[in-house]
Each structure stands twice: as structure tokens, then as C-alpha cells.
């Protein structure tokens, strides 16, 4: 256990301590104790920057289950560090914000911070682990913690719905990801990501490459809310706002991005990887941005905007994966996409975090998040309005904020794609920048809409539930202000991060592209001449403003009025259908009728025996060494068959008992013919006692009525009975003939020879029963004793009342 291991596990340890602090230190808001941890971790991770920026990576091993290749190896390179800094940095700000957001008196703070710390630790585990199974374990912990946080207000129905939905979707993805990891293990024989990257060519050549890739991507896409798995994210907005800001904008939803970026070294270079990721990202981008325009709830807008921005990052990662195809081509051509992805990842975390917090403030102060009720808050909440303006301008891609720079890089990356000349891009490549452009127009549109609807226009207190609206307390504003300042700082001085954070992360995403000692060229500027990107940006702004100006015209269209996502309906329908379908299926087969279950059993026995006989050319009824049939046997057997066949037709109680008795006595007679005196004796006795018992019981039972069975049922019964009888006959004949064919010497020879010599008895059957195989007899005695006890207790024990169990 090194310090790094402790760093990953520290949130879990803290989570154990939180309930005690909450219980015994009621006077101080529990958040203050929690706040220290991410802050310390953030500073600790900052100390790694000098090492990672020089291209160094830190690997600390810790065996967990070495026999299965599962080890808790912590690995820090540029990419892990970037995510670790995001997690701890935004984590600290979110905790600070939540201290003012959640009331000390009204809320169950211990639950909140335990879940949040659990999540933080799991997230650190995901980004810092080198072992796929360890990543999977932490991955599922993030799913669980996320669901717990979404359902934090568990008395609300919508919270539970959102939590369940996110749980189902992300756990579905997690499980397929586990399957993908297992396939990777089968191919390469290791769970270590670094070793997988080293064996990338073996994996590429394997026939399991595509299944492994798709399964892993399912995990990444569900977690990162990619189309069509994005539906859980808007419903996760039922969580408290600090949770939405932390989990559903800055960290958890980027776990999928992290996974894709991390495994680019393994799968990158394949056309399937390029197309799946780029296409999924672009569809998500455009779908999310269009859906965001339709939303009326501030958090709903932000949720869809997150979906869309995640799609943007994903498509950039897809476009950048071509680097592995070219290996040593023009690195500026495709590495721009990776650079844009990494840079936008950071930018998105900053502005989206601040926007969520600003929305939380609006919600907190006005009591609503509905844009139709809000308006004119600019003068009432100037600080919040400024923060929102900065965040939204950055999201829309306006200079001088950081969103502008990453949007420009994004457009460059997308335009570059058309120049690759591989993977059929010559034919379809031109679509990619067009989609990017349209999506950016809608992004611009919802950004203006969100700002104008919330902060501009007329302020109308009558629509709000609260009486007095004012600016948030200073403490609540600290975190969004810090984030908004970062938005500006990264916007004005983008190269602050270039070689300390971004370049090492790029090098980690694209391992093996650089030769030692080389660096990617990271130089982000505001002005790079009159390029195509600039005109596109101008076009975006013009079109966006145009659409906003004509808002009155399309305000009442079905497009804007509808809010529900198409895929939500599909999910709900599928969910209900699954439940109803399985209920229906159970109702069909579990009828509660004994007869139906008998029918199932007999049918399956018939089918299985029949198939087996057919398959192995049974029955082998040939050359049977049969014993002769004495004449009187014919007589006994014909009487037997006659008596047994009458039983089903009888409706008289006494007649049915007597006929059953007759068949029992005929069995005894057969035993006589087979030279089994002991059996005959026992059978006679037992049959007599049975008949007496039947008589006794029948005396107390109602008369047998002639049951009317529908002819169809009668046919089914008949077919099944005859089939079952036939199978048993054929089966035993086969057993007999196979026994003869094998021609083994019977062990009975031993009993016959040694009955007198060793056991001192003449009756061989009796000697077997009490001497050679005495254990059987002992247990059989036990069976009879138990039966007697059961009969006695059934008759004697009567519980009065409360019998209905």
C-alpha cells in the first residue's frame, strides 16, 4: 500500500467516519469535515504535474487476487491525472456549495456525504486503476452511488423513477463492459491496460476484436449518456443540484469518455472503432442540442446540453483515433481532434459545473426551475446572472471564453476528418462537419434561450411560490464564481494548461505515437486568420440569433411544445412490457393445477426419452435372450391387464378399491411366478393393509362423481398416458437388452456364494437385507417410522385458529 492507494481509498474511509461526525458534532455542518478531503487530495494530485508533464508515469502495484490476474495497480499518467484533478477539484467546490445548499436542520446530511464520498472514491478508482477488473468494480460502485444520490429525496416518486432508470441502464452497460473485458482477457491474457496496449496488434488480429469492442463501448456509451442511452440523464436531474453538478456534468458521465480515451490505444486505428464512436458522438451531439431547445426546465436544458457536449467530446475521440491508423503521418491533422477533446473536457467541467450551481441558486431562491415562470432576475441576482452569462457564453462558443477555443478546435477537428482519405471518408466525410455545424447552431440557440428566459424580460413575483427573491448568500456563490473565473482564465490564457495538463493527457490517449523525447504541438490561440472555422463560427452566431429572433413564430409549434424524448416512451413501454410479459408468461404456465404440472413433467420426459432413443438408434431390441413363457403366466397377465384397464372407467368407490387391490394381489402372484417368496409374502400383506386403509379413508370421503372431461382434454390425457407408457416399456426393454449386450457378471453371484459361508444365512434375500446391505433396511425402517409419526400428527394435532398460513 503506497500513498496513492491510500489516496484512492481515503474517501471510503472518510465515508465510514461521516455518520459519527454527523451524530456527535451536530453544531457544525457535516460538509465542512468532508470538504477537507477533496481539497487535500487535489493538492496532492497537483504535486504530480511536474512528473507527468515530463512524460513520466507512476505505477504502484498492490496484489489483490494475483491468481486471477486481478491487482489493484494504481497508474498515474497525464490522462489519469487530468481526471483525478477534475474529480477532486470540482469535488471540493461541490462540497463547499452543498454546505450552503443543503440545510443542516432539514436534510439527512450523513446519507448525502456518505454517498458522495463513496462516489468520489469510486471515481478516483476508475481513473487511477490499471486493471480492468478493478476498474469494473469501481465503475459499478459509481453506478450504485449515483443511484443513491439521485434518490436522495426518496419520498418523491420521480426521484425513485430516475434512480431506477439510471441504475438499470448503467448497470446494463457495466455488465456488458465486464463481458468485453473478459473477452480482452481471453485474447491477450491480461487485465492490465498497459499490457493490452502493448499487445494491441494481437488484439486487432483476433476474431473476438469486434465483439469485445462493442461490449466495452456499450459500457462507455451507457455511462456517458450517448445516444440512445442518454435517457437516464435528464431523469437523474431529480437529484439535489450539487449532485447534478458533480456527477451528471463533471465526473461520472465522463467515465465513459475516460474509458474510450484510455482504450483508444487498444482499439484505435480500426475503422469500426472510428465509425462507431464518431457516429454515436455526432448523433448524440445533434440529438442532445435539439432536445435541449425543447426543454422548459432549467436542469432539463442543462441535462440535454450535457448529453450533447458529451457527444461532442466522444466524436472528437473517434476522429482522433485515426492517429493509430497513420502511426507516423501528419500528427497535426488528427491530433487536433484529441487536443480539442481534452481541452473541451476541461472547459465543459468548468462551465457546466458553474451553470448547474447557478441554476441551483435560482431554484433555491425562487422555488422554481421552470423557464415559463422565471424572468427578469438580472437586477435581483446580479452575481448569479453574471456567472450564468459567462457559462452560457462559453458553452455557446463565444470569445473570449474557453468554450470558444474548444469549439474552434472542434470545428477544425471535424473539418480535418474530411481530409483523412481513409475508412470511406472520401464518400461520407462531408456530412460530419455539417452535423457539427447544425448542432452548434442549436447549442447557441438554447444558450440564448436559457439566459433570456431566466434573467431578461419582466420579473413576475405572482408566478413564484416565494414572497421575496434576493441574491444567494455569499457562501453559495464561492464555488460558481471560482469556476466562472476559471472559464475566463482558461479562455484568456489557454496555454496555461497546454504543456502541464493537456499535452500529457494527449500523450496518454495516444500511446506509442510519439517517439521518446517528442511532444505534441499544443498551441491554442484566439486568432488564426480567416479560416473556414471562423466563418463557421460567424455562421453559427448569425443563424442562432436569427432563430432566437423568430422565437415567437415557432414558439407554438409541436416541436417546441413537446418535451418528452421519443426514447423515454420506448424505455417506459419496454419496461412495462417486460413486466407484463413475464407476468403473462408466468400466468400461462403456473396455472396452480396439479394436472397441468403433471402434463409438463410427462411431456418433457416423453420428449427427452424419445429424442434420446431416436438420436442413439434405440431401442436395441434385438437378439434378446428371453426366457420362455409358461402357459399360466399368460393367464395371470391377461387377467392383470383386464383388471387394470377397468380402473379408469370405474366410478364406484368400492369397485375401484377392489380392482386396485386385485392388481396388487396379481403383482404378488407374479412374484410367486418369478420365484420370489419373500416379495410375494410382503406384497400380499401390504396390499391387504393398503386395501384396509383405502376402505377406512373412503368411508370418510365423498362419493366419486362421474367427472365430465371435455373430449379434447380426454385426448390429451390419453395421448400423454400412452406415450409415457410406451416410453417406459421401450426404455426398460432397452435397459434389459443393453444389460445383456454388456454381459457383465452380476454381483449377485457373490451374494449367492457367500450367503451361507460369510453371513451364516440360507435365505439370500434376507441376508442381503439385514447383513450385506443392512443400511438400506435401517433407513427404510426410519421411513416407516416417520410415516407413522406423520399420520399420527396429521390426525391428532389440530390447531384451532390461525391455521391459514
Amino acid at each position, binding site marked *: 500500500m503506497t500513498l496513492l492507494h491510500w489516496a484512492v481509498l481515503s474517501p471510503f474511509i472518510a465515508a465510514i467516519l461521516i455518520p459519527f461526525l454527523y451524530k456527535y458534532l451536530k453544531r457544525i455542518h457535516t460538509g465542512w469535515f468532508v470538504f477537507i478531503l477533496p481539497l487535500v487530495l487535489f493538492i496532492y494530485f497537483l504535486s504530480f504535474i511536474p512528473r507527468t508533464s515530463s512524460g513520466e508515469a507512476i505505477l504502484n502495484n498492490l496484489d489483490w487476487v494475483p491468481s486471477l490476474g486481478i491487482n489493484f495497480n494504481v497508474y498515474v499518467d497525464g490522462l489519469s491525472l487530468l481526471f483525478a484533478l477534475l474529480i477532486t477539484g470540482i469535488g471540493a467546490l461541490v462540497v463547499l456549495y452543498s454546505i450552503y445548499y443543503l440545510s443542516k436542520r432539514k436534510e439527512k446530511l450523513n446519507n448525502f456525504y456518505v454517498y458522495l464520498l463513496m462516489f468520489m472514491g469510486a471515481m478516483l478508482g476508475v481513473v487511477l486503476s490499471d486493471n480492468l477488473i478493478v476498474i469494473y468494480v469501481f465503475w459499478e460502485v459509481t453506478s450504485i452511488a449515483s443511484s443513491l444520490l439521485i434518490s436522495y429525496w426518496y419520498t418523491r416518486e420521480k426521484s425513485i423513477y430516475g434512480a431506477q432508470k439510471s441504475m438499470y441502464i448503467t448497470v446494463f452497460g457495466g455488465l456488458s463492459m465486464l463481458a468485453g473485458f473478459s473477452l480482452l482477457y481471453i485474447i491477450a491474457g491480461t487485465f492490465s491496460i498497459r499490457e493490452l496496449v502493448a499487445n494491441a496488434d494481437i488484439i486487432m488480429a483476433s476474431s473476438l476484436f469486434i465483439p469485445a469492442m462493442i461490449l466495452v463501448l456499450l459500457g462507455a456509451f451507457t455511462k456517458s449518456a450517448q445516444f440512445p442511452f442518454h435517457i437516464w440523464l435528464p431523469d437523474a436531474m431529480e437529484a439535489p443540484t450539487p449532485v447534478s453538478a458533480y456527477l451528471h456534468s463533471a465526473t461520472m458521465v465522463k467515465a465513459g469518455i475516460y474509458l474510450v480515451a484510455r482504450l483508444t490505444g487498444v482499439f484505435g486505428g480500426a475503422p469500426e472503432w472510428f465509425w462507431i464512436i464518431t457516429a454515436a458522438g455526432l448523433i448524440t451531439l445533434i440529438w442532445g442540442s435539439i432536445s435541449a431547445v425543447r426543454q422548459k426546465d432549467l436542469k432539463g436544458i442543462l441535462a440535454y446540453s450535457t448529453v450533447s457536449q458529451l457527444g461532442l467530446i466522444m466524436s472528437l475521440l473517434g476522429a482522433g483515433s485515426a492517429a493509430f491508423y497513420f502511426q507516423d503521418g501528419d500528427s497535426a491533422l488528427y491530433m487536433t481532434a484529441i487536443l480539442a477533446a481534452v481541452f473541451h473536457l476541461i472547459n465543459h467541467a468548468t462551465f457546466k459545473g458553474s451553470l448547474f450551481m447557478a441554476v441551483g441558486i435560482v431554484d433555491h431562491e425562487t422555488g422554481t426551475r421552470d423557464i415559463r415562470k422565471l424572468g427578469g432576475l438580472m437586477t435581483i441576482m446580479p452575481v448569479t446572472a453574471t456567472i450564468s452569462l459567462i457559462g452560457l457564453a462559453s458553452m455557446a462558443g463565444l470569445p473570449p471564453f474557453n468554450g470558444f477555443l474548444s469549439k474552434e478546435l472542434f470545428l477544425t477537428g471535424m473539418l480535418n476528418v474530411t481530409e483523412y482519405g481513409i475508412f470511406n471518408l472520401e464518400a461520407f466525410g462531408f456530412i460530419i462537419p455539417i452535423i457539427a455545424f447544425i448542432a452548434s447552431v442549436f447549442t447557441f440557440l438554447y444558450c440564448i434561450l436559457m439566459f433570456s428566459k431566466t434573467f431578461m424580460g419582466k420579473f413576475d413575483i405572482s408566478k413564484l411560490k416565494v414572497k421575496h427573491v434576493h441574491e444567494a448568500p455569499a457562501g453559495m456563490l464561492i464555488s460558481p464564481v471560482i469556476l466562472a473565473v476559471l472559464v475566463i482564465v482558461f479562455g484568456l490564457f489557454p496555454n496555461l494548461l497546454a504543456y502541464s495538463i493537456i499535452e500529457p493527457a494527449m500523450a496518454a490517449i495516444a500511446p506509442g505515437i510519439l517517439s521518446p523525447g517528442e511532444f505534441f504541438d499544443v498551441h491554442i490561440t484566439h486568432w488564426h486568420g480567416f479560416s473556414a472555422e471562423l466563418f463557421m463560427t460567424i455562421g453559427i452566431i448569425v443563424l442562432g440569433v436569427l432563430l432566437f429572433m423568430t422565437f415567437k413564430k415557432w414558439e407554438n409549434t409541436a416541436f417546441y411544445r413537446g418535451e418528452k424524448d421519443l426514447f423515454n416512451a420506448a424505455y417506459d413501454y419496454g419496461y412495462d412490457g417486460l413486466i407484463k410479459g413475464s407476468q403473462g408468461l408466468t400466468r400461462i404456465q403456473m396455472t*396452480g*393445477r*396439479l*394436472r397441468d404440472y403433471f*402434463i409438463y413433467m*410427462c411431456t418433457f420426459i416423453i420428449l427427452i426419452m424419445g429424442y434420446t432413443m431416436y438420436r442413439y438408434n434405440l431401442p436395441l431390441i434385438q437378439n*434378446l435372450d*428371453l*426366457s*420362455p*413363457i*409358461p402357459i399360466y403366466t*399368460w393367464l395371470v*397377465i391377461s387377467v*392383470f391387464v383386464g383388471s*387394470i*384397464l377397468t*380402473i*379408469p372407467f370405474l366410478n364406484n368407490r368400492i369397485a375401484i378399491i377392489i380392482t386396485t387391490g386385485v*392388481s396388487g394381489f396379481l403383482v404378488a402372484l*407374479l412374484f410367486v411366478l418369478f*420365484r420370489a417368496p*419373500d*416379495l410375494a409374502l*410382503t406384497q400380499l400383506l401390504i396390499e391387504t393393509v*393398503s386395501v384396509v*386403509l383405502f376402505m377406512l*379413508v373412503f368411508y370418510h370421503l365423498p362419493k*366419486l362423481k362421474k367427472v365430465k372431461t371435455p373430449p379434447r382434454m380426454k385426448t390429451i*390425457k*390419453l395421448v*400423454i*398416458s*400412452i406415450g*409415457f*407408457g*410406451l416410453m*417406459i*416399456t421401450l426404455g*426398460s426393454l432397452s*435397459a*434389459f437388452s443393453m444389460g*445383456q449386450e454388456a454381459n457383465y457378471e452380476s*454381483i449377485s453371484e457373490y*451374494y449367492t456364494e457367500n450367503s451361507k459361508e460369510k453371513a451364516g444365512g*440360507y*435365505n*439370500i*434375500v434376507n441376508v*442381503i*437385507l439385514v447383513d450385506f446391505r443392512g443400511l*438400506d*433396511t435401517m433407513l*427404510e425402517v426410519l421411513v*416407516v417410522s*416417520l*410415516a407413522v409419526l*406423520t*399420520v399420527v400428527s396429521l*390426525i391428532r394435532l389440530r390447531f384451532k385458529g390461525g391455521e391459514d398460513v
Partner: protein
Amino acid sequence: METLVTILAGVLVTVATYLLLSKNLIRVIIGTAILTHAAHLIIMVVSGLKTGSVPIVGEGDPVDPLPQALILTSIVIGFAVTAVSLVLAYRTYQEVGTDKLDELRGDPDE
């Protein structure tokens, strides 16, 4: 003779199955009793029904004694089971007032 007895056992199984599929509790119990007979006959048959003396030392070449021992055990167990199910049927009728299996069904939702 083995073929003949096997066919007899098959007929027994057919009738037993037919009774097991009926709606009446007592018919089901009778069905199980008949099924027991069929099983015993089959155990007897599959080891061969060669002619010989009774399995007692000194009577000449005896028939196979092992299946007889097995059947003896089985008869007793079969009887115990039949007795218990009969008493169970009797008690069920006393408590519930019916011997129709369809009427003994629980609620469909249970």
C-alpha cells in the same frame, strides 16, 4: 417373458398416468400406487427373468436375489408414502370439504 412383463408394466404406467391426470385426489393416489407396481415389475425384469430356483441356499441354481431385496425395500417405502398421502387426503377433505384438485387451487396471485 421379459417382453411380455415389460409390456404389462407399460400398460400399468399408462393407466397410472391417466389416473394421475384426473381431477380427483383419490384417483391420483391410486395412480401413484399403480405406478409403484410398474416400477417393481421393471426392476424385476431388467435383471432378467431366467428360470432358476428360489433364492435359498441349497435349492439349486437360484434366481438373482439382488432385485428382490431392492423391491422389498421399495414396497415398504411405497406403502409408507401411500399411507401418508391417504391420510393427508382424508384430512384435506375434513378441513377443506372437497376432494377436487381444481377446487384446491390457491389464489391465482399467490
